[in-house]
């Protein structure tokens, strides 16, 4: 499903990812861990083509990102749901609209949008917050809105960048439960986190990064 082959990505003087090779199988749930600046976010950005590799090739859901035309990027991204570290919620739109946009950009009709948004809101426990604006929500609630937006189009791949960063243990557990459910339906899930509690004894593969280097892959 995801194949990194000898990928290197540099930012000015710093190397974010160095000669990185990794394959993620379809339906796998994988954790990527490491300290801040280890290259976790860069790895995810390379998957949804927010960054391009300086060396090496990446294959995502059958798409070779090397030489990918700009006009094809939206269609690659439609295979991927992303839980952004900085949320990227639209302050001028309510919860319903924030989630619905993921379907509207795909040209899905209003009736289907309405049904799916309420169904997803129920799944993340925010049905009662449909009309609320992001600023009025707690951190945990905002995170769940972002998760809802990422999973609503039933993506082939779900990427989560520090999805439990500022959440309490209960909220973090709730978020992880959603990811497991999504993964159980066949979606490939990648979670980048420095919180070891999220993958301890999970039986999942954990990729360890440090200073842009792959330092190990082990099963938790």
């Amino acid at each position, binding site marked *: 499903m995801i194949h990194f082959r000898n990928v290197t990505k540099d930012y000015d003087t710093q190397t974010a990812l160095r000669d990185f090779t990794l394959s993620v199988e379809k339906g796998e749930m994988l954790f990527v861990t490491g300290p801040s600046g280890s290259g976790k976010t860069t790895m995810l950005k390379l998957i949804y083509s927010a960054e391009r590799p300086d060396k090496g090739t990446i294959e995502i859901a059958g798409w070779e990102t090397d030489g990918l035309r700009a006009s094809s990027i939206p*269609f690659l991204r439609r295979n991927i749901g*992303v839980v952004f570290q900085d949320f*990227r919620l639209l302050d001028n739109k309510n919860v319903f609209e924030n989630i619905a946009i*993921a379907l509207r*950009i*795909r040209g*899905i*009709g*209003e009736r289907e949008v309405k049904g799916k948004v309420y169904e997803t809101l129920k799944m993340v426990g925010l049905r009662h917050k449909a009309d609320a604006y992001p600023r009025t929500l707690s951190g945990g609630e905002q995170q769940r809105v972002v998760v809802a937006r990422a999973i609503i189009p039933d993506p082939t791949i779900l990427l989560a960048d520090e999805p439990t960063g500022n959440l309490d243990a209960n909220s973090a557990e709730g978020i992880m439960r959603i990811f497991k459910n999504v993964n159980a339906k066949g979606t490939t899930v990648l979670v980048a986190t420095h919180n070891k509690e999220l993958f301890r004894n999970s039986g999942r593969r954990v990729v360890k990064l440090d200073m842009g280097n792959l330092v190990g892959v082990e099963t938790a």
Partner: protein
Amino acid sequence: MIALPYSLVLAVKSLLKEKWINLLSVLTIASGLLIISIAVFGVVNITAATHQLPEKFSMIVYLDDSLQKKDIDGVINSLKKNNSVHSVKYISKEEALEEMKGLLKDSDYVFEGLDDNPLPDSLELKLREESVGPETVKKLARETLGIEGVREVDYGEKFLAMLHGVKAGLQTVGLVLIVMLSVGIVFVCYSTVKILFYRRTEEIETYKLLGATRSFIRLPFLIEGAFLGAAGGIISLLGILSFNYLVLLRLSLSMPLLRKILFPTDLFLLLPIAGLLLGITGAAIALGRIRY
């Protein structure tokens, strides 16, 4: 696939949210289109007035006093052979004097003491429509003066040259004004859409990351540009129609001369479409190439 209704919703929301900047743009566009309309109005009337010139224009050829009937016929035949000449009318010196007396009937003292008729026999030439221009008329006058028995040719050379100069000048000024204001309107739409685009940069970046295509991002802004232009066009149309109703039609009741002025309503009905196209052009330039 593009969801047009949702793009429409986004455009309408943005138009309402930024209502003051949009209103200002619409009024600026309307003013520009109104000035363009007035320029078009002027050009249309000047063109129409100069088109009527061939009907009014005539050249007077004065003949030598010594000419006999057959000599005069010879001059007439020579002139009729010229391709620029449409018709030739003979005016005898007696007819000319009668006409002059008719014109100066309030100043008949001018004719006191006149024993002999001082006026010469003359020919009035009407020219073909395409020949009424400073250069062709000048050439015809030169050729006519070369005919034996022709004493003088009078055709208001300076007036004709001035009229054509004024027509060409006003048409050029009108055209330059239309082009400049059209560019100005495109720039107003460009600036407005650019501002609206910058204000929504974060939102657009999020759309891109979620998989929005360029068309999805562009469409609401193009609709906004189209709306600004079309609204400006409608207001300018109302303005020029009001000018016609309140000024031209009302004044023509007391000033019949104004009835001769043309008001090209059909042309002005295109103003909203012209505004719409200029608005879309400005918006398209403002959006440029959306990068991923």
